[in-house]
């Protein structure tokens, strides 16, 4: 069974009398441990797809099943709980809580889930940060970390709850090429070692080298055929 199973998903926004189709009958399955790169130009609908997959947005039509949870008709409260328990997010920009240090940015996930940041949670946070090469930076605030380090902390936070699916939204867009490549390598290593599925949204085709599969999106429509996508575009 796929970790992410999206079928015929549409997202339509109403603007005055016109309908704007952000996602048009998108169907996408991602298996355990599979890394899918979602490649498309700006405004193509890739972030909309990612948001629907992660429960940040509800589809207008279609079904979305994540790790066995059909979230298509979840209400806001259910989606909040779903996001907390079942998916990890790494957003485009620096995405840490500025008044929490690196370790606490991971522990906040435990706190939000009703944990008390106890010994087990702290042990896991430290282990994750060690794995991500941040063993000596645990007590540093985000402002004291470099761009690459911040993204690594964000990856740690996304993995903290052992989700089956992690969603990356342009994770390297704020990094230089070298650091970006390092982060992508790290993402691949971490996902594969945990058998965690990942969808990585990017507009940089070089990043697709780190994915098992590349899916293109243009005008809200998905295709795996680059030629077709180019023709459509």
């Amino acid at each position, binding site marked *: 069974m796929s970790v992410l199973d999206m079928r015929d998903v549409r997202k339509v926004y109403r603007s005055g009398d016109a309908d704007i189709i952000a996602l048009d009958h998108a169907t996408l399955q991602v298996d355990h441990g599979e890394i899918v790169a979602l490649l498309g130009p700006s405004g193509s609908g890739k972030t909309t797809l990612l948001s629907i997959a992660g429960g940040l947005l509800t589809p207008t039509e279609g079904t979305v099943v994540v790790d066995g949870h059909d979230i298509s008709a979840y209400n806001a409260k259910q989606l909040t709980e779903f996001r907390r328990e079942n998916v990890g997010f790494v957003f485009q920009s620096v995405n840490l*809580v500025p008044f929490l240090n690196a370790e606490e940015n991971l522990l906040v996930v435990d706190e939000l889930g009703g944990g008390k940041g106890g010994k087990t949670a702290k042990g896991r946070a430290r282990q994750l940060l060690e794995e991500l090469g941040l063993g000596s930076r645990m007590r540093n605030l985000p402002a004291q970390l470099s761009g690459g380090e911040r993204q690594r902390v964000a990856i740690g936070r996304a993995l903290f709850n052992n989700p089956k699916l992690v969603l990356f939204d342009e994770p390297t867009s704020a990094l230089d090429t070298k650091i970006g490549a390092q982060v992508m390598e790290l993402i691949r290593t971490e996902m594969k070692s945990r058998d965690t599925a990942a969808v990585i949204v990017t507009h940089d085709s070089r990043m697709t080298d780190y994915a098992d599969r590349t899916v293109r999106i243009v005008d809200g429509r998905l295709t795996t055929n680059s030629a077709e996508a180019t023709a459509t575009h």
Partner: protein
Amino acid sequence: MFLALKEMRRAKVRFGLLAGAVGLLVFLILFQQALLTGLINQFIGALKNQSGEVLVYNGQARKNLDGSIILPDQQAAIAEVEGVAVASPFGQATFTVTADGDETDAVIFGYQLGNPGEPTTLISGRLPEGADEAVASEKDADAGFALGDVVRVEPGGASITIVGVARDINYSVAPVLFVDFATFEAAKRTRNPDAAAILPSAIAIEVAAGSTPAQVAARINDQVDGVEALTRQEAVDGSPGVSSVRTSFAIILGLFYLVVPLVTGLFFLIVTFQKASALTLLRAIGAPARTLVWSLLVQVFIVMTIGSVIAFGLYAGAIQGVSNLGIHVEVMPAVITSVVVLALALLTSLVAVRRVLRLDPLSATTGAGIAL
């Protein structure tokens, strides 16, 4: 709780400054309230802290004890009114006295021993048990009105020994002596030896079981001509100058009660705007809105509590420095003020709460406001 405390720990200066500002503002409220109480006590503490539950004035006195006399037939009629357990003469006049070798003005209150009109805030010594004994105000102890001091009514009148000291019994900002009615009469005759009779200024009433002071005052006003009966609180509130002092202070205090929560509410609104990116991120990764609201309210509570503690410390210190004003540190009014200010601050922080509740977790994907 985790988020609230961590943020405060990392922004000690910011939250410390707010707590300090709140502390100063709450201190001003506490100090002005104490000043108001002190002023009122100095003006009419003797009325406020005597045992008569109802005071009956001459109807033309306009609630002013200085201009009031009660005639014997009025006193007799008052005593007959239903609900009056005891109706006792209550005299008041200002005299020149010699205390600690200096001549000064003092207000002498005369009451029948054991009857309504005696001081109720005795803190040392005892009540008078016979002629030429008095209870004086604690505030005037250093001016020759301490326990054991002897005060002479001028010119050449009785020597009155201070046998008790009571708190907050001044009148018209002058020292006060509570004496038995016979001593009061003697003092009046010192000044006017030819007076045919010494009439009481008012009648102090003890209310019988089953009636309230308000009911008894209303009945007296209905049934006895030429008098105005007031409950003790009405007598205090109606005394000349008291209501205007209260109104002035009420306006000042009202402004402070408005400013403190507004400052707090505004601060938390600004902070909420400043950290909107972090809050959006937290919502995106699954933080329930109630967790973030709770975190905000915990911070308001902590800031206001610390502010109140700072305020109480300043208030206690300042009161010690102005003890000659006859004001005291009172814990309960300070606690009530702190609770009221906290409640108002929580109320004004609802604007920030509303802002938190309106955060859209989807904004995390746009990068809007996510930057540190």
